[in-house]
């Protein structure tokens, strides 16, 4: 009896290739036609993988045929570069996947939820038995340890989420913050929505086109401010997002400085995502003002990714420890250790064989 993983991911294939396999596979087919005793399908936008337990070596072509069933009538549907991992390599691969090390954005945590969901579905369907139970439970443990013992999930990697995180670092509770969205750019709107999702209630929108401002205000549940009056808002708001198409800076240091005197104990966070920039960079030198333009936000995204990449080594060490332990369990037929209880309703064949 061995554990195996057959699949393809964003490392080897483009989205078009993955689309041919994702979302259409049936684990029953893999069990029945490929000859597995247990099988679990993990299909996300970045990977399509089958985890299984079998007595004999199963051809990747067989798995590919099952994955591509009913959707692809191409004469060469299996030309995609499937990888294959067995036993401890399979465990290592799953531990890396669950921990976000194999993800397109290193350290993302969504994959763990997807793996848990896939496992629950397989368990409920009776196609995941003792082997996969142990393998996945261990993978979830490893992912949790990696998350808590390293900084791999630290920092955001998208402009919107970085802006929201920074706002949280300055103001703490965002519910009391007043936000002005200047301009009707798409990224600005997304950032405003992200702030609203974190509790911001007082949202104001100002745009040269009053009609566009009104539409946007309605869409993000905000108050429209006439464009002629937006500068006065600098005295009131806590966060300002600028994304107008103005060729020249709209907010100069000289204009803002006198307004800050009335709000000496309240910081002002400015997110300038316009190109060319809407805010004079000299504004950042003013006390209590934190100005971030698109370059600085992207630079933070890169810093976050770099920090995450540095953590990969520590995460790999944690995984290696678990792989070594799991290999010992595998050698003993997974019959000892903590959590020996069977999952509900495993396939009859699987339980008899094991």
């Amino acid at each position: 009896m061995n554990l195996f993983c057959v699949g393809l991911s964003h490392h080897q294939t483009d989205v078009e290739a993955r689309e041919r396999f994702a979302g259409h596979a049936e684990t029953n087919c893999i069990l029945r036609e490929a000859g597995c005793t247990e099988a679990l399908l993990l299909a996300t936008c970045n990977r399509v993988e089958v985890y299984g337990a079998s007595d004999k070596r199963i051809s990747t072509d067989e798995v590919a045929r099952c994955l591509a069933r009913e959707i692809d009538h191409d004469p060469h549907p299996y030309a995609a570069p499937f990888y294959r991992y067995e036993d401890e390599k399979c465990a290592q691969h799953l531990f890396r996947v669950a921990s976000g090390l194999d993800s397109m954005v290193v350290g993302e945590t969504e994959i763990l939820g997807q793996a848990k969901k896939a496992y629950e579905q397989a368990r409920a369907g009776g196609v995941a038995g003792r082997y996969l139970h142990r393998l996945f439970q261990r993978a979830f443990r490893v992912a949790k340890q990696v998350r808590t013992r390293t900084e791999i999930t630290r920092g955001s990697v998208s402009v919107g989420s970085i802006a929201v995180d920074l706002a949280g670092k300055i103001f703490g509770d965002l519910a009391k913050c007043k936000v002005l969205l200047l301009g009707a750019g798409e990224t600005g709107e997304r950032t405003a929505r992200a702030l609203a999702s974190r509790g911001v209630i007082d949202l104001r929108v100002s745009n040269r086109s009053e009609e566009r401002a009104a539409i946007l205000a309605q869409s993000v549940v905000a108050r429209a401010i006439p464009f002629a009056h937006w500068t006065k808002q600098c005295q009131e708001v806590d966060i300002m997002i600028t994304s107008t198409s103005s060729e020249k800076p709209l907010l100069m240091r000289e204009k803002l400085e006198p307004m800050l005197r009335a709000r000496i104990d309240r910081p002002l966070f400015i997110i300038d995502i316009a190109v060319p920039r809407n805010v004079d960079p000299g504004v950042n030198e003013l006390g209590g003002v934190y100005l971030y333009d698109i370059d600085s936000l992207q630079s933070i995204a890169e810093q976050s990714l770099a920090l995450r990449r540095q953590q990969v080594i520590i995460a790999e060490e944690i995984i290696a420890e678990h792989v070594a332990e799991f290999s010992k369990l595998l050698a003993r037929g997974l019959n000892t250790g903590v959590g020996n209880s069977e999952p509900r309703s495993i396939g009859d064949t699987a339980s008899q064989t094991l």
Partner: protein
Amino acid sequence: MDRELLLLSTICFLAAVGRTIVELRARIFRPVGFNFFAIGLGFIFQTGFLSIRGHALGRCPLTNLFEVLVFLAWSVALIYLLVGPVYRLSLMGAFTAPLVVLLQGIALLAPIDKPHAVKMPANPWLEFHASMSLVAYGAFALACIAGVMFLLQERQLKTHQLRSIFYHLPPLSDLFAAITRLLWWGFALYTLGLVAGFFIGQPLPMRQVICAIGVWLLYAAILQGRHLRRLAPKSVAALCIIGFSAALTLLWGITFTGQMNLP
């Protein structure tokens, strides 16, 4: 026996410092858990030391510079244990432990634990004055630590260079709220201690009175500036650091000269 307890306490705080350094170097900093436990244990040993010393002296153990430093370290740890969890400033432990190690390290290494030739009679007003003032110093020390954290966070936000520790620091608004509250607590306690000083019933050395009033005026000015919104949060944070450094120097001066003048 009492010095052994103090040594054990210092080791606990040193363990918190060591752990923080190792984690910062490995870029896997996690402030909660170990630091709080180590500081809590260190605080128990500190309390044990002060209790034994107090019983031996028959009064509050504030008779020489050695005891003043230990009492101050105890106050810092006490305020941290009270304030840290309430304001979710768990990272403060990483900054508190080095200060306590420094204070207790000086106390243990410097030859300043000189017993008085004459056993001084207990004076409740004097003891109240000294202990309240030192607990107030503990609050000022924590305000200073929160000030360091504020400036560290503010600098990273200004320069857009976010280090690993950035993600563990509390928001600027929370830190500033903690600084303000600690300043008010410290100021109230210090005022109580100062007023009690006038009821001691002995002639007060003019230099000490001037120093004590100077510290009181300094913190009163910071709080007034904050209250009237004349001082920006960054300036308040910086003044907390400057204020505590000055207050600590004056405390050392007062205690050291007081000790020198003893028979």
